């Protein structure tokens, strides 16, 4: 009797250490929601939660691609810059009001959208080429792409601000359906498809296996270069689409308007519990991570905290998530 108890206890322990990376973010989220609900009466309302969803929707689209990248144990630091450049590109291909002084190239909406998507694809292909073919570490390669994308942004708007986009983009970025913002719908769609592809397709399995043990994947005849190249392309395309919607969401397209999105997207993936060492985690984790960040950002506004302190608190939350992330990995490898 006692022996079986000890056995089931130790099995529980194994299960808990196994699931630490999944459990910790959920508890963090619950704790934050409870704290802010008590601290502020305006926090726990339907309207406010729709606000939160809306606030994290753009980050969510970027985070889907980034989840794929981080699952293969790579990183993409160019996501925000690519989103910015692609957002500006769509404006560049759209007729702007007279007072916007940009030498741009207006095209019919559908062509503008297709060309802009191709721009995002091109960023991804260049990154994939550098990382897999040339062998540049993704950390450095995407840093270079970040700078290049910022350069593209700068050249296209030249310090100006653009305001017009194809109608379809304006609708998705700033419109609503049944009272729900389209960006939320698109984000849910991306998260859903991202999750299905990761969990139920061959490609998804290859991503997990490549991230779990790249050498073993290669010696099992998996084309790891193709997998890693693909996730870099997926990440760039997700960022690009997020960028297109975001300029309509913001109502303007200009340089440096995505600066906070790089950290937010990485934080969402990591806080959610996806392993920085690859092979563990997924879109489910990213959703929790997004909610933690969304609730935190929004909740801190409700409790009237010093806005400078907010930045520090976000940093501390990210640090503790990193500690749990690395610790969970160590536990996982120790048994």
């Amino acid at each position, binding site marked *: 009797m006692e022996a079986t108890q000890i056995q089931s206890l130790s099995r529980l322990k194994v299960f808990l250490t196994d699931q630490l990376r999944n459990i910790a973010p959920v508890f963090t989220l619950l704790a934050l929601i409870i704290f802010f609900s008590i601290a502020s009466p305006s926090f726990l309302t339907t309207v406010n939660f729709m606000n939160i969803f809306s606030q994290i929707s753009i980050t969510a689209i970027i985070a889907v691609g980034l989840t794929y990248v981080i699952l293969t144990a790579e990183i993409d630091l160019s996501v925000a810059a690519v989103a910015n450049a692609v957002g500006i590109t769509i404006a560049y291909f759209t007729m702007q009001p007279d007072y916007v002084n940009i030498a741009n190239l207006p095209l019919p909406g559908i062509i503008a959208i297709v060309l802009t998507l191709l721009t995002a694809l091109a960023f991804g292909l260049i990154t994939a080429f550098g990382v897999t073919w040339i062998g540049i570490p993704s950390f450095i390669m995407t840093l270079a792409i970040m700078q290049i994308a910022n350069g593209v942004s700068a050249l296209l708007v030249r310090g100006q601000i653009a305001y017009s986009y194809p109608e379809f983009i304006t609708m998705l970025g700033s419109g609503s359906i049944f009272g729900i913002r389209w960006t939320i719908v698109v984000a849910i769609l991306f998260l859903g498809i991202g999750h299905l592809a990761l969990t*139920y*397709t*061959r490609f*998804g*399995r*290859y991503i*997990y*296996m490549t991230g*779990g*043990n790249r*050498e*073993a*994947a*290669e*010696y*099992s*005849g*998996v*084309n790891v*270069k*193709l997998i890693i190249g693909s996730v870099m392309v997926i990440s760039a395309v997700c960022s690009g689409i997020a960028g297109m919607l975001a300029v309509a969401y913001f109502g303007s397209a200009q340089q440096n308007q995505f600066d906070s999105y790089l950290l937010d997207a990485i934080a969402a993936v990591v806080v959610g519990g996806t392993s920085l060492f690859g*092979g*563990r985690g997924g879109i489910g984790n990213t959703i929790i991570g997004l909610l933690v960040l969304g609730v935190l950002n929004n909740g801190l506004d409700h409790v009237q905290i010093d806005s400078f302190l907010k930045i520090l608190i976000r940093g501390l939350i990210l640090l503790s998530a990193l500690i749990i992330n690395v610790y969970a990995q160590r536990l*996982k*490898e120790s*048994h």
Partner: protein
Amino acid sequence: MNIQLMSGDGLPPLLKLSNVSKSFGGIAALKDVDFELHTGEIHGLVGENGAGKSTTMKIIAGVYADYEGEMRIDGAPMHFRSARDSLAAGIGMVHQELSTVPDLTVAENVFLGHQPLTRFGTVDWPRINREAARLIASLGLDIDPTTRMGALPVGLQQLVELSRVLFSGARIIILDEPTSALSPPEVKRLFEVLRKIRAEGRGIIFISHFLDDVLEISDTVTIFRNGRKVATERAAALTKDAVISHMIGRGSIGMHMGESTTLAGDEAKPVVLEARSISDGKLLRDVSLRLRAGEITGVYGFMGCGQIELARALFGKIRLKRGQLALDGATRSFKSTAAARGQGIAFVPENRRMMLFRTEPVFKNISIAILDRIHRLWLKPRAENKIAATRATDLQIRPPNPNMLLGSLSGGNQQKVGLAKWLTHLPKVLILSEPTRGMDVGAKEDVIRIVKALRDRGVAILVLSTEPETILTLADRVSVLRKGIVAKEFSHGTIHKADLLAAA
């Protein structure tokens, strides 16, 4: 048979081990070993893998502190608790894998860890370069101390590492497989340096599988077998054959499984994969090999002879610099491991870590190599599970539960999983690197049976191993690899372990 060596001047030996024994978890690795090293002596140490050479050296180097018996240095009893103790007592080791830093200069490497400082606390560069130059010149070498280490050929890098050991004041120098990566002229130069060091009154222990080298440079040779010292003799009184018969035991030739075998190479069988004088630009030089359907080709050689590279060249992991591969007579070049797999080549590497996913369940480890055959787009976990369960039964993987995490299986069963992933659709060619290394007897026999069954079903199999027993147990024909070259081929008649050892 054993002769007692005494220093001519009556001084105690530089190093003396008496009745040293060491066991790991109740299994004896070393039994009552006596060993003496004298000043001005080069002492060769030979024996098969697992004979006790490494264990002995690790005791001397302070890696193992819990052993029985006594160690004396200059007649004084010593018991090292750590590698630091051993270093302080004047013992220096040059490992087979060099521990030099390729991006630092030669001089920096010589002084690695203890650079002399100026009185301002900065590194004294003129002194480092001056003293390194002096040290290197004293070994009769002509190397500019400011050269980047990585720019030197491996033979010179090794000599720089040796000079670092000398500089640290070592009087007992242990060289582990120093000639395995060297060309003949480099070996000659190393020997000249060793003779110089010997003349300075230091003692050298020379561990090697290359018996010709050992007999040439050593004054005395000690031979280990099964954890015991079986002989210590003057090198001049030994022949290579005598050393081999000590290593494998006289009475046992041909008596046990794996000691000898009768080869049955059949030229009538079709060649499936052919390597036509392939070179990888580093180690492999003009290696030619023909793998035939329904035959097991064994490749034997010492560690570092190029087997690891050969296996990877055939599986599309290493690109060929020269030569070509032909599959069923048609020239092929595999741009990736995925391409090789697509052509029906399967590879089980020597290290489990390289082929398995510890934190994933067994069925994912098995299905990874055939996902594209089971699924088009969507995964079918049930189909995967069924296939994995079938493999687990076929190969007697225990427990036969495809949902267990791989890491919770025993080593032998993990090895079987690594094999299992290639067996759902029979490959044309199966490359096995060290298929039975480190396995217990039961698992070993299972693997041997599985491999032979695959051969009988027409798979062309390549087995690469540093263990002669593995080769002799499995192979229908054998190629012996030596420093990246096929040194000898056997296809018919009876061969003994001694033949392999002598050819390698």
